[in-house]
């Protein structure tokens, strides 16, 4: 029996939605689990069969992580845990540090990266080979850089400091910034700039009035992409600054001990807190994101 084209198309459509739904479930489940766990009382963290949506929702995890971190837990059962974690937790300081470090490093990377990308796109200031070398920089496993960098950082006093991490994050995300913003700048036809110039606009005026508005969405997308990377960076932060300068991923890792295992509820509550700022930034700039990530905003 043969199917008509419409039938075939319908079957394909059903199949596509089926696959997409499965994929969505796989991707969304950890997020759901994180939010769900953050409201669970401690006895449900490990319970079997698992509790998907708790009937004993509590804010205790949030309170402990974000407000009572210097108090002993009132819950007798987790008193031990509270003791263990108590002296080390500085979530608000970590939030401040992360905001400062990721924010500044990302801004610098996008700023310098896009200027560099403009030069590469329009004046070939870096050869194709150099551009690839720049990208290869990202291929180096960070761990191999740790030893020389920490030695060097110790000498010049950048170890365990905010500028130390900002510089490192800025440098490691610069390749992404250059490559991503270049792809957006390449899309602005050269003739459009020439048109502005011959109509009397200066170079700066041309960039400001013609190029920048056309790549703005792309730069915003680049900004968010790099912000996500630096916001959640763990390894460099762990090894280059652990005592004085604490960032959120490091703070998160502290809710586990060698004997107690992971303190899931607390970690989940902290994770939700770490995620919210990124979601918030994403919502603020969402009109740019759809255009920026679709890589095709200039209609010719």
């Amino acid at each position, binding site marked *: 029996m043969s199917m008509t084209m419409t039938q075939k198309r319908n079957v394909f459509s059903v199949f596509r939605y089926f696959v997409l739904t499965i994929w969505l479930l796989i991707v969304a489940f950890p997020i759901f689990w994180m939010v769900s766990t953050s409201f669970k009382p401690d006895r449900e963290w490990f319970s079997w069969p698992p509790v998907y949506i708790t009937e004993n929702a509590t804010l205790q995890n949030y309170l402990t992580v974000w407000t009572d971190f210097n108090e002993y837990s009132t819950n007798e059962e987790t008193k031990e845990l509270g003791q263990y974690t108590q002296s080390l937790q500085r979530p608000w300081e970590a939030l401040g540090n992360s905001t400062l470090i990721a924010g500044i490093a990302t801004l610098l990377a996008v700023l310098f990266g896009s200027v560099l990308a403009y030069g590469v796109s329009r004046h070939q200031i870096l050869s194709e080979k150099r551009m690839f070398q720049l990208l290869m920089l990202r291929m180096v496993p960070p761990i191999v850089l740790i030893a020389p960098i920490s030695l060097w950082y110790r000498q010049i006093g950048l170890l365990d400091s905010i500028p130390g991490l900002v510089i490192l994050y800025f440098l490691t995300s610069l390749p992404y910034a250059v490559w991503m913003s270049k792809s957006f700048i390449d899309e602005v036809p050269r003739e459009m700039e*020439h*048109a*502005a110039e*011959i109509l*009397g606009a200066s170079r700066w005026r041309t960039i400001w009035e*013609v190029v920048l*508005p056309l790549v703005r969405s792309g730069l915003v997308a680049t900004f968010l992409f790099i912000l996500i990377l630096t916001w959640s960076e763990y390894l460099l932060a762990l090894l280059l600054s652990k005592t004085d300068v604490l960032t959120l991923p490091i703070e998160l890792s502290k809710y586990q001990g060698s004997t107690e295992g992971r303190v899931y509820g607390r970690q989940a509550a902290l994770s939700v807190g770490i995620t919210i700022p990124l979601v918030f930034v994403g919502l603020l700039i969402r009109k740019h994101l759809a255009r920026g990530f679709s890589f095709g905003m*200039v209609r010719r």
Partner: protein
Amino acid sequence: MSRIELTNLRKEYGNVVAVNDLNLTIEDGEFIVLVGPSGCGKTTTLRMIAGFEDPTAGEIRLDGSIVNDLEPRDRDLGMVFQSHALFPHKNVADNIVFGLRMQKVGKEEQRRKMHEVAELVRISHLLAKMPGQCSGGESQRIALARTLVTEPSNFLLDEPLSSLDAKLRRELRAECDRLHEQLQKTFVYVTHDQEEAMTLADRIVVMDAGEIVQMGSPIDIYSNPVSYFVADFFGNPAMNLIEGEFVQNGSAEFRSDSFTVSLPEKYKDISPGKGTFGIRPENVQVSKANGGDTRNIGLVEPLGKDTLLYFETAAERPFVAIVEGTESHSSGEPVELSFPGDNMFLFDGTGDRIRA
């Protein structure tokens, strides 16, 4: 008064010579068309005049003063691009006043001039739209308006119509002509389309491989090509060009696999050797078979006023003749072809025209 002079203008990209010591003077108010196949250096020449490319050597003078080192915006030029290059994030009105804003013209003046020029190119109804909402033809009118409004002394047009369909192209071609009549400014127009060149130009500059091969009025170029290249480039349908050789066999003759033509008296001293015989389709005389050398008509293509007759030859390109549309011919019909001596073009083995 505005005159563009190019002296020994040269542009090299690495080892490639894009423009080879070009000399050209464009007079005030002239409509000049640079034409040639892609890669012939016409666009590079235009871009050097505009200031987007630095010449490797040579001088560009506008009104007598050298402008090689001036920024494009200081050269008193307007330019229209093939891609229109409208600013997609500004509406049509803002696109048009962009140049005036850069010149710090007052707001009132801006508005007045914008409406004036929109009227001139008939786009007043589009002012509030975004470029993305306009058709290709409308976009090119907007691009024209944006350039016109700044009142430059010279207009550079870089294949402005080549992205449009045939009907729009004809329409906007007429528009360009009208604007030139009305403004009496200098127009430098680049195209690879011989028909645009023929219809628009006061003077055509034919370029090939970075050099000017011929310069002259359209009719001069058409009726007096200096080489095989020019002869082949102009005319639609193209000139019939048959490769073969010239022989002295008592009298001067041209011979190829398909044709043997005895050459008129003025070519009696032609030197034997390889060469090309050319005749335009409209100059081929077709007559009923009458005991002479006949050949059979291949395809018959009636166009109304004229009819095109195609003949198979040994060469890849068919031989074409144009006859009056009122004559009736059919495929397979034997006819005799003759070539009036005054309309023959002969080219030597290197492609240069052989003159009597």
